[in-house]
């Protein structure tokens, strides 16, 4: 075990509606979707037509720039619809399950018999390659790249996030197989970060073939980007890969069972969730299958956590990388002299401008109200307090706004993706869309490189 890394900066959002540790529903495959928009910068080439019958593991589309990277159907059935947006941009490939639960039977060799090239070939052929993401920029890993190391976060500090120890408790064998497989891809080792609390007692601590790291601290300590920054920061020209823990299990199942099995246990939570708890679902599950958790009224359904997730609506589909659905009330209301109210007991503030810091045990029914109008950057010390990285956030944001590539590079654009700066956006009193700024900065970097 390496040293314990204690982070002080950050913020655990006291939001109400945490999921009870109980699986309250197992959703049988119905309508699911695979969304090319989940994969940053990927231009899809469609491989199926509407009406084609597919099995779990049949490729639906491939990456135009890298045709070996394919994105597969998570269920067996027929292609129901191909949804396009503006300029015919491919948004969703929907598959209607037929209930047969057939899967493509892949011929998978033993892990120990494979080298890097063969392992890459197997992962690509069996459709699990998109589970690997690459930093800088959080794109799908480039099979031709040589990663410095592979990082997995074994902790989830995101607001209302799924607890890996509960959600993955039946998957330890698959995770073990997954990390062994990943170990073949890099010379730098597979790094797994666990919470410092009960570090040795953690079930994940029994895994072999990984390098453990212990982290302690508030969100975003569980973000893999923050962990990389403290374990082995990314420099210009370097590449690391990251895999979400629940997707390590997907890779592992491929080697244990020879099939593309992306079922996952997700947390359905949030102040507006009806019975916040865990649900077992296929990847890309339709929100209509979870309708009973959302209740009536004007609510926002977020695939992912409330800080960095994506609003998908009642008809939407779970994102490929997400293992959480957050449910929030929409905040369409006016609040008379809200800014002048000395107490404002129903709202949380991380700043001491409100006495929320005195109500330390309280959980808040947060909604989507902006709580103010957008203004220029004014305060300069709020962002650094929630970003536990060796980075000057305000300067990075301004470099992104200015589109100054050299500055962005120097100030650490390679080390962050949107989710790492999400808390900066949360606390910003000027209500600036910081994740959007970083997104545009990253898009510019990718275009120019």
């Amino acid at each position, binding site marked *: 075990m390496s040293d314990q890394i204690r982070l002080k900066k950050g913020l655990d959002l006291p*939001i109400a509606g945490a999921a009870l540790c109980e699986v309250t529903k197992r959703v049988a495959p119905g309508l699911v979707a695979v969304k090319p928009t989940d994969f940053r910068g990927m231009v899809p080439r469609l491989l199926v037509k509407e009406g084609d019958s597919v099995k779990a593991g049949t490729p639906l589309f491939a990456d135009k720039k890298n045709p070996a990277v394919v994105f597969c159907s998570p269920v067996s059935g027929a292609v129901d619809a191909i949804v396009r947006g503006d300029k015919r941009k491919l948004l969703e490939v929907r598959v209607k399950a037929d209930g047969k639960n057939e899967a493509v039977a892949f011929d998978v060799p033993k892990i120990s018999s494979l080298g890097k090239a063969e392992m890459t070939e197997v992962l690509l052929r069996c459709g699990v390659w998109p589970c690997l993401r690459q930093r800088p920029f959080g794109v799908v890993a480039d099979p031709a790249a040589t990663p410095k190391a592979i990082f997995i976060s074994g902790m989830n500090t995101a607001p209302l996030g799924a607890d890996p120890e509960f959600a993955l408790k039946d998957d330890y064998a698959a995770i073990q197989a997954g990390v062994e497989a990943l170990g073949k891809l890099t010379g730098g080792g597979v790094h797994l970060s666990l919470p410092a609390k009960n570090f040795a007692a953690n079930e994940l601590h029994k895994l072999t073939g990984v390098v453990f790291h212990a982290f302690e601290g508030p969100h975003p300590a569980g973000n893999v980007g923050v962990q990389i920054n403290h374990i082995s*920061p990314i420099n*210009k020209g*370097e590449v690391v890969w990251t895999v979400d823990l629940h997707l390590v299990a997907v890779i592992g199942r491929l080697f244990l069972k020879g099939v593309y099995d992306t079922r996952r246990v997700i947390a359905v939570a949030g102040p507006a969730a009806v019975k916040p708890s865990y649900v077992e679902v296929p990847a890309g599950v339709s929100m209509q299958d979870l309708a009973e958790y959302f209740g009536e009224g004007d609510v*926002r359904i977020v695939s992912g956590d*409330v*800080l*960095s*997730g*994506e609003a998908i609506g009642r008809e939407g589909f779970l994102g490929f990388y997400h293992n959480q659905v*957050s449910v929030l009330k929409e*905040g*369409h*209301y*006016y609040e*008379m*002299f*809200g*800014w*002048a109210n000395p107490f*404002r007991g129903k709202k*949380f503030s*991380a*700043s*001491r*401008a*409100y006495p929320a810091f005195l109500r330390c045990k309280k959980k808040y029914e947060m*909604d*989507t*109200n*902006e*709580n*103010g*109008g*957008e*203004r*220029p*950057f*004014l305060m*300069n*010390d709020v962002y*650094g307090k929630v970003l536990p990285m*060796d*980075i*000057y956030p305000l*300067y990075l944001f301004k470099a992104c706004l200015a589109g100054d590539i050299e500055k962005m590079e*120097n*100030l*650490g654009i390679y080390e962050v993706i949107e989710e790492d700066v999400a808390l900066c956006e*949360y*606390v*910003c*009193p*000027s*209500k600036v*869309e*910081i*994740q*959007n700024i970083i*997104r545009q900065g990253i898009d510019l970097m990718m275009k120019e490189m």
Partner: protein
Amino acid sequence: MAKNFFDKIRPTFSKGGKLGWLHSSFDAFETFFFVPDRVTRKGGVHVKDCVDLKRLLIIVVLAMVPAFLFGIWNIGYQHNVVFGLGWSFWQMVWYGFVKIIPLYLVSYIVGLGIEFASAQIKGHEVSEGYLVSGFIIPLIVPVDVPWWMLAIAVAFAVIIGKEVFGGTGMNIWNPALLARAFLFFSYPSKMSGDAVWVGGLSKALAGGTPWKGGEVVDALSGATPLSHASLDGLSAAGTSAWNLFLGNVPGAVGETSVIAILIGALILVCTGVASWKIMCSSVLGALFVGWLGQIGGVTDIPCWEQLLMGGFAFGTVFMATDPVTSAQTECGKWIYGFLIGALCITVRLFNPGYPEGMMLAILLMNTFAPLIDHYVVSANVNRRLKRAKTV
């Protein structure tokens, strides 16, 4: 009720409405009364902290209220002392109130007028930044400043100091100090000397109006203790450290009472709105140079007394900590604050022509704050580059 009113007139001020071009102004008033119903956008965070700029800035204004209230009384008190009137407490307060209100009207009407107009022209939302600047300006000028001068100074500060740089958040210099500097250099006779700091005194002197207790004036003609003290020490200026701490001495409206300013500092630090690092380092810088001056034989004033004099306390607490014009990096703040304190006392010790060093010290360090930050950020960049080489 107010909600209904806004809902009723909103179409008139929306795009395409009759008064659609006044949209920014409508928005400013509406958001003043109501936190808007806007929700977070797709692709960002979905919940947001309930703090906004209005809240932070109102706290700054609130923190200045003790100094403001004390200032009102002190205007009346100084007038009373100089003219030997034997007024009661409420008479003094009333005199101060009548003196200060026109300054506030001028400051806010001119300043906010320009802010609204420029937001209107650019089609932006009106930023709340001027609420604070507008509150500071009357507190740092002599109470007898002619209104038209103040209006010009405010217009200069807002237009040249702020709007040409792109408005709130983009300015290099603290707008309030810029207004004062403008007055100081454009109309020195109204801004310096001894008589200007007592309400009604300069008029009385100029007009030859007889006043009771003329002999008192002679004794007090060193109306700002600072100009005498910087040369001769406090007792020669007819005052004591205790009086400076309380603030019942002549001076700009808000800057005399250290105790009132300390209450404000406490509010700012407890709420985390202003940087305690800047305040601390500024005090340290002043003590350091004050101490050097003392052991070097430049002055007889103990270094701690320097902290009580003139605009040092007010500047340190309310103006050096302006988040826009101060250093932006945490390390830079220590350097920035220290240099402000040090420069302020240096100016006091070595240039009797400008006994009030704080204004110049802050404006100068505002200018250099980006440079300090540049070096702090460069160090971070170099660290990152070095890391690349060693791995």
